[in-house]
């Protein structure tokens, strides 16, 4: 399974439709403080089925919808699409007939999140299992958020042991 591309609309500071290509090797993302780099990372985790608003730095999940700035009003819908290549047929059976897989998560203010996989409605659980199966769930060790290294250092030994459970 390969990750190909991320597309965001109305997600946090990415109000206008934006595409991030995920190509082989190492892609660097740079920019000043507060420009939106970590928001990209959160969009990826969110599309993978992240359930905790707190882990998205919000009080409730609606907080990921573009809230407006001094010239534009806030939005009521946020959508993130994640494109995968499944040529090696490694995903759960229900999605495994496809060469290309498009996972879309959409949230409507006050109505919660909806998921579609290749256009067909899916449950959050199915999407979470899909990504967990390719070792990259929203909480997998492969997504190292901005505070993560610091959290490991300051964690009590018992909290730190939880990281081993990812490997078990």
């Amino acid at each position, binding site marked *: 399974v390969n990750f190909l591309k991320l597309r965001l609309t109305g997600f946090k500071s990415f109000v206008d439709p934006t595409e991030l290509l995920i190509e082989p090797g*190492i*892609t660097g*993302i*740079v920019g000043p403080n507060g420009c939106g780099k970590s928001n*990209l990372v959160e969009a990826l985790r969110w599309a993978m089925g992240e359930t905790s608003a707190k882990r998205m730095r919000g009080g409730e999940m609606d907080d990921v919808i573009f809230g407006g700035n001094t010239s534009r009003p806030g939005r009521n819908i946020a959508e993130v699409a994640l494109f995968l290549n499944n040529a090696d047929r490694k995903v759960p059976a229900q999605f495994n007939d496809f060469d290309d897989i498009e996972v879309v998560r959409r949230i409507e203010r006050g109505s919660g999140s909806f998921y579609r996989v290749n256009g067909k409605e899916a449950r959050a659980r199915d999407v979470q299992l899909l990504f967990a199966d390719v070792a990259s769930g929203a909480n997998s060790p492969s997504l190292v958020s*901005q505070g993560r290294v610091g959290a490991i250092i300051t964690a009590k030994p018992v909290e730190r042991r939880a*990281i081993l459970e990812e490997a078990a």
Partner: protein
Amino acid sequence: GRERMLAAFERVNTSFEKLFVRLFGGGRAHLKLVDAEDPLDAGLEIMASPPGKRLQVLSLLSGGEQALTALALLFAVFLTNPAPICVLDEVDAPLDDANVDRFCSLVEDLAREGATRFLVITHHRMTMARMDRLYGVTMSERGVSQLVSVDLSRAEEMRATA
């Protein structure tokens, strides 16, 4: 339950010991289960000795040394089941140039040896220079983010103007 935890511990520890040496260019380190007989109740302690220094518990190391050691642990867990994507958000922030250099070398090796695609967010000039390609995030309209492709030679002005 207990069997799996101990097996995971062994696998991660073996990987951690090797990654520590690669990231520090020497020294040694190991993981330790502490505070309980039963591994399912135990804590995970990290013992490390950067090159030329004596073995100490993680909390006695410097800020940068702690970060690099924690990174060795994260990569060790990652390698037990490598995902097709790996995202690192400003993990190089407390590192000096010599450590950033070894960190980048490790990421380059992992990218080359496996099929994982890496996304690295950084403010470090040295890290930027080691990327295969660069995207810049800008906010020319305040509060609205835009993604632009950045020429590797233009990286310097991208990272810091606000």
